[in-house]
């Protein structure tokens, strides 16, 4: 097996979660999600459309910043990525602050579009490379966007999976719980349990996260790397080894 970096594993793992989507949108400051989206487009033979906010060559917006939200509301965005300063076991995310709102102990940027997109886009992938109990908490201090909603609330979208530096979780919206589906090479289930502040289920067929095969690595380091360099030159150069 070819050697691979953790970032390459994450890109490949997220691309598997994106399979079959027609349109993936990626927010700013997201080199790994953007790479996963571009890899998905490559693997789809170009049929998957990718919109990368802030990359003019990969965006078709011509109706202002509202177009992403309108587009998602029309059901035309299939997948998107969120991070979270905190994520809890009900898939609530906190992008606002730690401690009591509003005078939080730590203040982050804000909820951005999450309080809308989480309800509109079918496959939201939560992504947080650093997997620890300060991030993955029993209950978030501020709910920027709720993981689940009562039945009377109109909702098309929601959490699909959580990808961290240690493993991949699926999320069951009916039950409102995460299930650990795979553990990354080098991590263990025990380690994940210790580093996770919320309780979760474990898949009966818990696997090791499938490493990227040689062909996938070639794509990541080649075609995808070349494309991602337009927006993230440093990431392309230093992580994917692209000559920029």
């Amino acid at each position: 097996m070819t050697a691979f970096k953790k970032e390459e594993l994450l890109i490949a793992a997220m691309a598997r979660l994106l399979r079959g989507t027609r349109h993936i949108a990626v927010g700013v400051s997201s080199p790994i999600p953007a790479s996963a989206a571009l890899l998905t487009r490559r693997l789809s033979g170009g049929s998957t459309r990718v919109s990368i906010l802030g990359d003019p060559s990969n965006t078709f917006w011509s109706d202002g910043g509202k177009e992403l939200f309108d587009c998602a509301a029309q059901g035309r965005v299939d997948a998107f990525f969120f991070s979270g300063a905190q994520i809890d076991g009900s898939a609530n995310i906190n992008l606002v602050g730690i401690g009591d709102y509003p005078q939080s102990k730590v203040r982050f940027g804000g909820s951005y579009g999450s309080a809308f997109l989480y309800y509109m886009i079918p496959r939201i992938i939560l992504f947080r490379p650093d997997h620890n109990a300060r991030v993955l908490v029993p209950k978030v201090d501020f709910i920027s966007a709720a993981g689940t909603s009562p039945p009377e609330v109109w909702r098309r979208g929601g959490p699909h999976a959580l990808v961290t530096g240690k493993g991949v979780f699926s999320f069951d919206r009916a039950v409102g719980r995460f299930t650990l589906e795979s553990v990354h090479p080098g991590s263990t289930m025990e380690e994940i349990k210790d580093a996770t502040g919320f309780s979760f289920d474990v898949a009966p067929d818990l696997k090791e996260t499938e490493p990227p095969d040689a062909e996938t690595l070639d794509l990541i380091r080649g075609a995808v790397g070349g494309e991602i360099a337009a927006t993230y030159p440093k990431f392309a150069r230093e992580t994917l080894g692209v000559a920029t």
Partner: protein
Amino acid sequence: MTGWTSVDELVAQIPDGSRLALIRDGCGVAMTATRALLRRGVQGLELVNVPTGGMQTDLLIGAGCVAELETSGVSLGEYGAAGRFADAVQRGAITLKEATCPAIHAGLQATEKGAPFLPLRGILGSDILRFRSDWRVIDNPLTDGAADPIVAIPAIAPDVALFHCPMADDAGNVWVGRERDLVTMAHAAQTTLVTVERRYAGNLYDDATLAAGTLSSFYVTAIAEAAEGCKPLGLPNHYDEDEGHLRAYAEASRSDATFAAYLDQHVMRTEVA
């Protein structure tokens, strides 16, 4: 349209206490005008980020010009946290109206359409709603009784919209290109102030191609020329952001003292080309 003027005269039309709408990074942030506004010592602004803020918002907050901020998020992007924003929020120094991006768009579009509110899906279950006493949850009136709660976002009515564009013509028509949020801002605001890279010789409406990206002078109060008017931020197809400057700003924004030094050095001294 009152006409072409200087940047200082332009920002003189932003009274203290104005509700001021500002566009997000990368879409025409009027930084030269913002520095002029800071030098003027503007007070008590109620900022509306459309729909997010960056260095411009952080600067105005750090300099003590802001009483209230409606935003979906403020950060310096890849350069890190907006330090003066975070500090002001933690100290309770500004009134924060926490929002989410499409709600700010909807609020401006409500004013654009003369509607008191627009209904918006999502949001229910978010703590944003708990802290927005001005937002209301209503039942969708079209379901004939079946429960279908939806949030009514009140119209956002800025006193002033301020932004930067590639060009404007003598008559005061402004070429906004793809940045349609600027059109919504101008429609929603009472006063619209624009800085531009350059004057366009002729009338933008005489060219059908340019007309498609043109905001009429009808919505524009005043215009000033400000070459590289977004710097150190970027203007698409014109210039990139100044990474070194933004990195230094991100550092400076971490404390009052370093921010004060930045403000003195880069803002308070008269703008030099």
